[in-house]
């Protein structure tokens, strides 16, 4: 059993799932402009992470499928989600929807980050310098996503929970 391959596959899946979640959140939150554009970029970043990982997985005899390239605004249900976003976007409850999406993204990004820690340990133990530098660079990008999500949640929560309750 290729245990390293399995670990890399889990990371790959986590990145692809996170990309999916960014795409869906971006479409759902089209009226939250800053979140919309960030989701768009982070989805691309996750796909790129998955694709990069695929090229390294070959070294560990693991064959991963080509990464998706779903983009915010281009899925089959995009226009529906966009419309719902606009309809809900004029209600104070839309802040709750935003918080819920941020929570989901934050949790999944943490999961991705965990897998990057493991990938870094694999790179070190197999003395693969090139993989190690790549893991380091991509993991830092994931950590930046987490910081961004955290900051958004800190800003959004008082307005969603305290102001809108009146």
């Amino acid at each position, binding site marked *: 059993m290729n245990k390293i391959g399995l670990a890399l596959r889990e990371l790959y899946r986590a990145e692809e799932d996170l990309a999916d979640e960014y795409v869906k959140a971006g479409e759902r939150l089209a009226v939250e402009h800053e979140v919309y554009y960030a989701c768009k970029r982070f989805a691309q970043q996750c796909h790129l992470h998955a694709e990069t990982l695929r090229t390294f997985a070959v070294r560990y005899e693991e064959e991963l499928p080509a990464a998706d390239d779903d983009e915010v605004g281009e899925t089959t249900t995009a226009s529906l989600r966009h419309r719902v976003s606009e309809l809900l976007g004029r209600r*104070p409850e*839309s802040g709750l929807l935003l918080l819920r999406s941020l929570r989901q993204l934050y949790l999944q990004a943490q999961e991705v980050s965990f897998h990057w820690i493991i990938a870094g340990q694999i790179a070190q133990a197999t003395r693969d310098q090139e993989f190690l530098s790549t893991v380091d660079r991509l993991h830092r990008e994931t950590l930046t996503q987490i910081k961004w999500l955290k900051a958004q949640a800190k*800003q959004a929560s008082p307005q*969603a929970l305290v102001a*809108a309750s009146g």
Partner: protein
Amino acid sequence: MDRIQRIWGEPTPFGSGEEWSQRVDAHLAVAESEVERWVQSACVLCSNGCGLDIAVKGGRIVGVRGRVEDRVNHGRLGPKGLYGWQANNSPDRLTRPLLRRDGALQQVSWEEAMSVLVARSQQLLGESGPLSHAFYTTGQLFLEEYYALALIARAGIGTPHLDGNTRLCTATAEWALIESFGCDGNPGSYTDIDVCDTLFLIGHNVSETQTVLWMRMLDRLQGADRPRLVVVDPRPTPAAREADVWLPIRNGTNVALLNALLHELVANGRVDRDFVAEHTVGYEALAETVEHYPPERAAEICGVSAHSIRNAARVLGEAERLVSTVLQGVYQSNQATAAAVQVNNVNLLRGMIGKPGCTVFQMNGQPTAQNTRETGANGTMPGFRNFENDEHMNELAALWNVEPLMIPHWAPPTHAMQMFRFAEEGSIKFLWINCTNPAVSLPELQRIRSILGQERLFVVVNEAFLTETAQLADLVLPAAIWAEKTGTFTNADRTVHISDKAVDPPGEARADFEIFLDYAERMGFSDKDGAPLLKFSTPEEAFEDFKRITAGRPCDYSTLSYEQLRGGSGIQWPDGRERLYRDHVFLTAADVCESYGHDLVSGAENDQDEYRAHDPAGRAFLKAAEYIPSDEQPNDDYPLLLTTGRSVYHWHTRTKTARAPELDAAAPEVWAELARGDVQRLGVAEGDLVAVESPRGRVEARARVCGIREGVVFLPFHYGYWDEPDGSAPNGRARAANELTITRWDPVSKQPLFKVAAVRIEKLADADGNTAAAPEVTAIPS
């Protein structure tokens, strides 16, 4: 002399290190001998801050004259300064409060207006708490007014929702300075222009936006030891026409170009190694990033030749005294902060900062924008304090004698675009707008009008005129303006001026300062001991209180006074110091810095603990950024790229300048600048009426065919609807550029991106003898 045609007046060339000569510019409606009084002030029609005296006769303003002793202008004034004062005397000034009743604005007494204001405010505070309140201020008031407002919003109401329209003009300047140097405040002085040997202007059409500063540059360019000039701008501006190297890049690609320039500096050994080693952090990462931007790559992205990029890099690399300046072509464009920071990096790599002739100017847009930043009315905390630093916030709370938790600092203060979003979803229910016109100046106007028009949102507007925004308000308070009240303000090179009251305001109009104080008193805002929160009742007392708040902070006003500011030249903070960072110790130390900074690409906030673990302790940051293409690229449906901007004769939404006959006549109507290379394909000729359309709206304008970059369309953003029938929205024919712009902002500075929207052109009618209303001095017809 006709200063409409001769914008910059008579040249007075000078060589490096010589004194810029004096030249007194004046415009009077009466003979000079008839002037009864001259009252000291400074100009509020751009960010330059030119000292001037107001001429008064019979209780009215009758003209202005440049102050020859002032360090900023040496007596000179630009066209807006010379003619703009006439707006004060305009017959359509607002003179009584207006309250919306049965759908229409009706005159009421101040007592009734203030009672309604306070009743609604108290009701909403009771029902929904402080987060229901938002304040959207301006870059046009005085320091004392912003300070009073910041104190009211932050510690009286306790809301994070206070920002200025300075978010649209100056937020990126502020954040670029913070990201590189740890704190706001332009390092240099306008006198650096007198001794520089190289000028690098990026996205800064100084010849139109700061005419007197351009006079200074132009006089150097025409004098002995001419400095070399590099200009980056898609339009052939008057500055571009004087340039040694002009790079008319595709809008939205600043980071790619700057990375290539930095690439060349590194590759050709033009880096001041000792300076970088001793006074900066981040060089390795920056060098690694820019390594991937050879001029050929940038040439492809930016649409200019690799040869011209190399030429520009050579000029910057050979400079011994480099002054770089940045404005809206960077701040309102794709990757605003990331690009502005790369300009800082040019000067840092060359070790050219904090010395005569060596600096970077992250320019301001508006005359008093600097003061919104200093007082904490622009999405920051007073005195350049760091909202994440508990010591800073405890100190502020102690100075104001309130509990630290009273001042919201759980997240960054809310920026303007987010405030409008909260108003859109309905959680902000009370929006007080002072002296700014979002119904013309914010992006995507259809959306903004629909937000302001909501029944559930109570909109209060302080204004001098019935603007598009005022027409949408529930309560309009008539405001006294410049020359009708006393206060101070600060320009882009930290020069503080006093502006004394010269005449009484018309009718019952009141200074914003008085309105804010009246509101605070009626609301009963108090400190933690039950004493009134605002411990001042005049502008001078507010200034004295602000001195206390800034003492020991980088923007230290404590050595200034009204008395000192009267009589001579404006004075720079701190303590008259010409340049910051003369010792090359920057304000980045963890205990000092205004922010722990951001990732420039995503806008993610840096973590305080990580920052402290790698405390740069006074070294400047060299922060790198990859180029990311802008989100809205030209496509088959919308094949052209729109950029919007200011023109020399107007200020903002023409509220004042269209009421000055000379300025109005010089540019009475909107126009669209189209490239020679595009018009044949479009079937458009000079003067034709065209529609400019984006996915968000449509504007009609006559075409000016000129030397703008191919594929790019320019619209001035000044024109709205107040001087048309039914004037709060388009009535048949839309002409506000912001009908077209996109709701998108920079991830770090949160400045809206007005300069990257995809559009198409449709010809509507032949010129038929008409020409575009574009000024021929600045937009030269082909």
